């Protein structure tokens, strides 16, 4: 990989490319679709109130995405494996690391622990949706760049999303309040000091932009 490839690309381009990937990725699933469509066959379930359709539209990063979602599928899996949004990471899949944090109607949630079907009518924001179309980083992203925050960065998307969500409720936190606000995220490089420095700077940047 070269540095050139790291330069920002048009988000629309990214999503088009990832969309193609999705088609490819789900190609494997198509061959087994009969198998995937199996499930407990409950007679008359269609007539029961609240019975769920698999095909749905998701509002992700401002785009409406049509996607076929299994009943037991979590949002993290849909984002990563169906929509190609791999910036959301799976660290534990059990709501105890925060790597999969996304915003649902502006509120941070563990996407590993919410069924995609329960966010049907909601706005989902992932790390890929923070940067503006012209490549300007979100203030929280910029603050991380400026502080050289994080090490391996596998937890980073989750931390950034948790911070973006937290700063909406408390735009001017103390370091202790901030730590409390983003305490649902685990960093195994234990770079907590730099993370808190980055995010305190992020709060400053956010105040400047608003």
């Amino acid at each position, binding site marked *: 990989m070269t540095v050139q490839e790291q330069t920002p690309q048009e988000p629309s381009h990214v999503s088009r490319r990832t969309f193609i990937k999705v088609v490819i990725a789900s190609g494997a699933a198509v061959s087994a679709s009969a198998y995937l469509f*199996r*499930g*407990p066959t*409950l007679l008359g*379930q269609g007539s*029961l*109130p*609240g*019975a*769920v359709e698999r095909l749905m539209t998701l509002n992700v990063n401002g785009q409406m995405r049509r996607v076929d979602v*299994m*009943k*037991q599928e*979590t949002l993290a899996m849909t984002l990563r494996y169906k929509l190609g949004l791999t910036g959301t990471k799976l660290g534990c*899949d*059990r*709501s*105890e690391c*925060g790597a999969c*944090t996304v915003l649902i109607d502006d*509120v*941070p*949630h*563990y996407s590993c*622990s*919410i*069924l995609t*079907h*329960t966010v049907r009518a909601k706005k989902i924001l992932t790390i890929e949706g923070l940067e503006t179309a012209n490549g300007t980083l979100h203030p929280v992203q910029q603050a991380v760049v400026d502080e050289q925050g994080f090490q391996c960065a596998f937890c980073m998307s989750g931390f950034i999303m*948790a911070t973006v969500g*937290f700063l909406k409720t408390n735009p001017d936190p103390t370091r202790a309040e901030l730590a*409390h*606000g*983003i*305490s*649902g995220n685990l960093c195994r490089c234990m770079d907590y000091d730099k993370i808190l420095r980055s995010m305190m700077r992020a709060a400053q940047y956010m105040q400047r932009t608003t």
Partner: protein
Amino acid sequence: MAIIHDVMPVFELFQPTTVDDTLALLETYKKDAWVLAGGLDTFDWLKDRNKRRKVVVDLSGVQELRGVKTTADGGIEIGAATTLTDVVKHPLVKEKYPILMQAAELVASPQIRNQGTVGGNVSQDTRCWYYRSGWSCYRAGGNICYADTPSAINREHAIFDANRCVAVNPSDTAPALIALDARMVIRSSDGERVVDAETYFIGPSIDITRMTVLRPGELLTAIRVPATWAGAEFYFEKVRERQVWDFPLVNVAAVLKVSNGTIAGSRIVINAVAAHPVRLKAVEDAVAGKRRNEETARMAGELAVQGARPLAHNGYKIPLVRNLVKRAIRGEAQARA
């Protein structure tokens, strides 16, 4: 059958929008149905493939289960599917029942509080790691308690009211609600029943496989907190190892009415020491009418641990309970996370 603890099994999903529809579904599927609120407990069981259900009934779309409102008697009613964050942030809770706010705020992590519901928090299953490993212990329908053997690691387990099973109730809001003398509103297709928070929780001697009185087909719809203890002095402390995510090793919730330095009345509850939150009735009686001082506090602490039976690794819970109850009576402000 080989064991694998990953990937949720297939289920049929229902997302009703009214309580009536929910109850109809629960009535139809009875034991085959699993009620999904925040899902933090649910997904653990399902993803581990340790418990499976044919049908999952998701409450997220049932608006009438959410929100906090005042009741005729001046208390509040909290919808069972209200998130913990909404409980923490609600002005009525903050004003009248700060103990509940504090308890809810100490639950797990911010994201979990954003999604987890108060109904789920009080109705969650125990975290005994043997049971959670999917081992067929008493609680899982077997004939053994793996947590009470000569080699068991039972640091988190019960010191009170164990009966074959030594698991504990891990809820933080439960003791606060019992201290506030809350009522649990339970509905089923047969109608509604209201039980005291204190009797909502059951130990293994009553039913070793359940933590609450909820039976298949029943749904906890709301929690009513009476005005009785609104604005009373309170004390809540949760002792845990990690300051995020961890369940309590012991927590204590106490509300006190004090006039001129004398304790007029109190309700004191501890949790994570038995399969149900333990209300310290004897302590409440003993401190009633006593001066609120160190001596009373010490007496309360000693009384609180009477009858405790420690296991191999949880003896520390005895001094911990003693000191926490002591602090609850003293009521001093303690530094919190």
